[in-house]
C-alpha cells in the first residue's frame, strides 16, 4: 500500500510522475535529433562529394581512353614542334637539310639566345645566309615556316648578285619548359577544344626532323679485355 510522503502532497507526486517521462522524452528528442541530423547531413555531404568525385573520375577515365589514342598518334609531333630544350640545333639541322633539298647554299649560320616576350616561352635567334636562284630562295624561305620545331622568319634582307640571289635571314625558334605541376587525380580533365584540334592538325603537317640511330658497325665484344 502506497504511503503518503511527508514532504510532498499526492497532487505534486502525481504531477512529477506524469511530467518526468515527457520532459525526458522531449530532451532525448532534442539531443538525439540534433546529433543524429548533424551526423546524417555529414554522411550525406560525404556521399554527395564522393558521387561528384565518382562522376569526375568516370568521365576522366573515359576521356583518357579517347585522348590516349590522340596522344599516341600526335604527341611526338607536338613535342617536336615545341620541345623542352633549346631547339636551335634541330632547327639548324632542318635548315641545312631543306637547303640541300631546295638546291641552295647555306652559310654563316649563327645561333644566339634571345629574351622572349611571350610568357613561358623561350626563344633563340638563328641568323644565316642562303644563295641560289631567286625562285629557289623564295621557296626555301617559305619552307622555314613549315618545319618542326616551330620557327618564324622575322627578317629577310635580299640582294641580287651575279649568278643568283643572296638572302640574309633572321629566324626565331622556340622551346618551353615542361609544366612544373601536374593536376590532382580528382581534378577533371577536358577534351581537346576545336581550336586545339585545329592547331594539332596544322602542327601535324610540319616537316619533322630526321633522326638517325647509328647501329654498331661490328658485334659488341662481351669480353673486351679477355682472350
Amino acid at each position, binding site marked *: 500500500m502506497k504511503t*503518503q510522503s511527508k514532504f510532498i*502532497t*499526492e*497532487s505534486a507526486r*502525481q*504531477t512529477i510522475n*506524469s*511530467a518526468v*517521462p*515527457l520532459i525526458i*522524452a*522531449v530532451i532525448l*528528442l532534442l539531443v*538525439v*535529433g540534433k546529433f*543524429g*541530423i548533424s551526423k546524417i547531413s555529414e*554522411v550525406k555531404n*560525404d*556521399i554527395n562529394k*564522393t558521387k561528384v*568525385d*565518382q562522376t569526375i*573520375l568516370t568521365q576522366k*577515365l573515359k576521356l*583518357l*581512353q579517347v*585522348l*590516349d589514342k590522340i*596522344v599516341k598518334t600526335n*604527341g611526338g609531333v*607536338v*613535342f617536336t*614542334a*615545341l620541345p623542352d630544350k633549346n631547339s636551335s640545333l634541330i632547327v639548324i639541322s632542318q635548315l641545312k637539310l631543306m637547303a640541300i633539298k631546295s638546291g641552295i647554299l647555306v652559310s654563316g649560320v649563327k645561333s644566339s639566345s634571345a629574351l622572349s616576350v*611571350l610568357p613561358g*616561352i623561350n626563344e633563340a635567334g638563328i641568323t644565316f645566309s642562303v644563295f641560289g636562284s*631567286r625562285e629557289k630562295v623564295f621557296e626555301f*624561305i*617559305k619552307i622555314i*615556316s613549315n618545319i618542326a620545331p616551330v620557327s*618564324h*622568319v*622575322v*627578317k*629577310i634582307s*635580299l*640582294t*641580287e648578285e651575279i649568278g643568283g640571289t643572296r638572302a640574309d635571314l633572321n629566324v626565331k625558334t*622556340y622551346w*618551353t619548359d*615542361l*609544366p612544373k605541376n601536374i*593536376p590532382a*587525380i580528382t581534378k577533371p*580533365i577536358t577534351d*581537346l577544344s576545336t*581550336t*586545339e584540334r585545329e*592547331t594539332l592538325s596544322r602542327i601535324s603537317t610540319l616537316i619533322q626532323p630526321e633522326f638517325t640511330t647509328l647501329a654498331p658497325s661490328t658485334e659488341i665484344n662481351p669480353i673486351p679485355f679477355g682472350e
Partner: protein
Amino acid sequence: MPIKLNLLPPELMVSKSLGSTLKTIRALGIIAISLFVIMALGMTAFFVISRITLVNLNSKVEALKTNIKAQETSEQQVFLLKDRLAKLEILENNATAVVNLSSIEPFIARISPPSTLTQLVISPTAIDISANIQTNSVLTNFLDSLRSSKAFKSVVLSSISLNPIIGYSLELNIK
C-alpha cells in the same frame, strides 16, 4: 443499482481538473517516447544505409583512382599536350616576314634581268625595295601593278632617279 464508492482517503485524492491535465501529460509523454523511439530507429537505419552507400561509393572511387593511376602516363601526356597546344596557339599569332614575302613575290617577279633587285628587306610589318629597272615599260608596269593592288596599306616611292647606264633607280617603302 451500482453505487460509486471511493475508498481512497481524502489526502490521497487529486482534484478532477488536475487529474485530467495529468492524463493529458501522460498521453503526451507516451507520444513523445514513441516519437523518440521511431526517430532513433529511423535515424539509425538511415545512418547505416548511408554508411553502406558511402563505403560502396568509396570503393568504386578507389577502383577508378587505381584505373586512372594505371593511366597516369597518359594523363601526364594529355596535360603536356594541352600545355604545348596552348603555347603553339600563342606562337601561331606571332608575326612572320613570310606573309609579306608571299604578298610581294608576284610584284617582284616583274623585275627580271636586265633589271635588278639591289635590295629587298622584308620584316613582319614593312617591305623596303631598292631596284634598278632598265626600261620605262617595266617601271610603269611594276608601279602600276603595285598601285592597283589591294594587298598593301601604303606604297611610298621614297626616291627615283634615272641613270643612263643602269636605268631607273628607285626605292619603295611598302606597308
